[in-house]
């Protein structure tokens, strides 16, 4: 008797080929992304390293020159200054943005009615390009033609962008203006995920609002704080657009962060070799900071819902 056996599904053969939970040939799908990323991401990264060992003025031929450019960069007092400026911007923006964002996030989480309206408005700074924001503030803060001059309030009429200390403060403020809304929303989302039962239990134990905030809210936000801080810190390391348009690193070099130092050395002083060396430093510092923050924050595997 002949039995008509349906042909075994083609899948069978490939299924046996792969050990863990069968899948078909899928590796090729990663190729387009890989190609583009390697061409414009990985290769330039290696390129920057390579260029730091050359001397090139951007116009002529690229001369390999060993450690010359590195010597020039490491001996230049401009480098530690740029690193100091970058550190100041990083630290100050974090110090200003984090408490504000947490406070606002907590507030937003609790007030359903205004939430929608506020959320819309809060997002607008995030939508604007750094160039647009910097240009707006430049005009706003002009000591002779800006808001301060128009209103006639001496306090507002400071030489905001012309005074070294003030200029740095302005940069931190404008950065915060753009990103506090974003971080507030992150915290708001996180706060809304804290189970009410924890607060209820604490209230039953007699804890007041402030105590609840410090003992429940903050610890529960730990991973969110790490995430948000990582974004803030790593982001502020590479700020370029905003500072470039607002102050171009000035006055003098008061706001010349690493990224700006790199641009000026390369594209204005014609020293592409040293500029590449600075770029390598930028990448290394960024990696270190990100790793450090990850280390500080623990692995993030434990559940935070114990006791809920």
């Amino acid at each position, binding site marked *: 008797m002949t039995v008509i056996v349906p042909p075994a599904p083609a899948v069978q053969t490939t*299924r046996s080929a792969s050990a863990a*939970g069968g899948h*078909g040939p*899928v590796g090729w*799908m*990663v190729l387009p992304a*890989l190609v*583009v*990323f390697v*061409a*414009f*991401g990985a290769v*330039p*990264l290696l*390129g*920057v390293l390579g*260029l730091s060992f050359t001397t090139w003025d951007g116009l002529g031929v690229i001369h390999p020159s060993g450690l010359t450019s590195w010597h020039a960069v490491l001996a230049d007092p401009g480098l530690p200054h740029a690193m100091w400026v970058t550190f100041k911007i990083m630290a100050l923006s974090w110090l200003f943005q984090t408490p*504000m964002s947490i*406070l*606002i996030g*907590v*507030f937003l989480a609790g007030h359903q009615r205004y939430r929608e309206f506020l959320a819309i*408005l809060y*997002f*607008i700074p995030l*939508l*604007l390009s750094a*160039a*647009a924001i910097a*240009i707006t503030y*430049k*005009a706003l803060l002009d000591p002779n033609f800006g*808001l301060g001059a*128009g209103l006639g309030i001496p306090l507002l009429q400071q030489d905001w962008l012309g005074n070294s200390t003030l200029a740095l403060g302005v940069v931190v403020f404008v950065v915060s*203006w753009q990103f506090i809304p974003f971080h507030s929303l*992150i915290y708001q989302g996180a706060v809304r*995920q804290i189970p009410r039962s924890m607060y209820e239990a604490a209230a039953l134990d007699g804890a007041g*609002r402030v105590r609840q905030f410090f003992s429940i809210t903050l610890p529960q936000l730990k*991973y*969110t704080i790490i995430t948000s801080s990582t*974004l803030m810190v*790593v*982001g502020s*390391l*590479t700020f*370029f*657009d905003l500072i*470039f*348009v607002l102050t171009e690193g000035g006055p003098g070099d008061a706001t010349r962060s690493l*990224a700006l130092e*790199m641009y000026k050395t390369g594209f204005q002083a014609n020293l*592409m070799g040293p*500029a*590449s060396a600075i770029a*390598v430093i930028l*990448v290394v510092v*960024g990696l270190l900071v*990100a790793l450090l923050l990850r280390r500080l*924050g623990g692995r*993030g595997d434990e559940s935070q819902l114990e006791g809920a």
Partner: protein
Amino acid sequence: MATVVAPEGGRVDSAAAPPRSRRRRTDEREPRNWVGGAAGWLWLVIVVVPLYWIVITSFKTRANYFTTNPLAPPSSPTMENYRFVLDQDFARYFVNSVIVTFGAVVPAVAVSFMAAYAIVRAGEGRFLRATNSMFLLGLAIPLQAVIIPIYLIIIRLQLYDTLLAIILPSIAFAIPLSVLVLGNFIRDVPRELFESMRMDGATEWTMLWRLALPLTRPALVTVGIYQGLTVWNNFLLPLILIQSPEQRPLPLALWAFQGQYGINVPAIAASVVLTALPIVILYAVGRRQLLSGLTAGFGK
């Protein structure tokens, strides 16, 4: 915004997230949160004042601007600033920005989705594991650091001063985060669904189209919008790689415009409003999607 190192737990853990209904009407039963409230409203004022100023200034005449109170609305609003800005070819710069954004975001999301799918489906293999690690490391590379070699590469490819020069690096830099986020969402698709499709004889490509794509659509849109915003507002790439005025995208055009007409504050205000308007409108229209996608992804 710059690139970011993998945030802790980017995945939406559906089991752990308590349903929204659990937090209800807190403000009715608890004492008011004064500090938070004060901070919230104060910051609202700080956010709004520059925006308000820019909008009303854009409607004032140049002469008026210097003589009247900067915070007062214009007594006789005029459209001359907008006309002036539009005369300066802003429509063209807008088109350039649109071309760059579409040309970068669609391919970026597409190839990232494919790559994420491959990594999720077959990530145990050495090749894919290495690729995944490379993408993750890519999150830490700032665009500013590698701009000089990119300039060199673009010149060699003879793409200097074309919009493609902005598009290609933008795609590359969008890939790491997109792959990460999309990967997380694909991971949430239950394995059984894949298994059953396989037993029906589907190929991986078919499964990508018919299974993964529809189920991760919200993530695709969110990632697309986020990358779109980043590419639209990019300033450094055009600054270095574009020279002809006709090829300028909006942020660069805005800067050049400010350089030339900076004293004419109302005109500058009008140019800022015009460049921001398309995005703001899009945002007002597509708001919900972006918000839910972002907060879900970063919640825990």
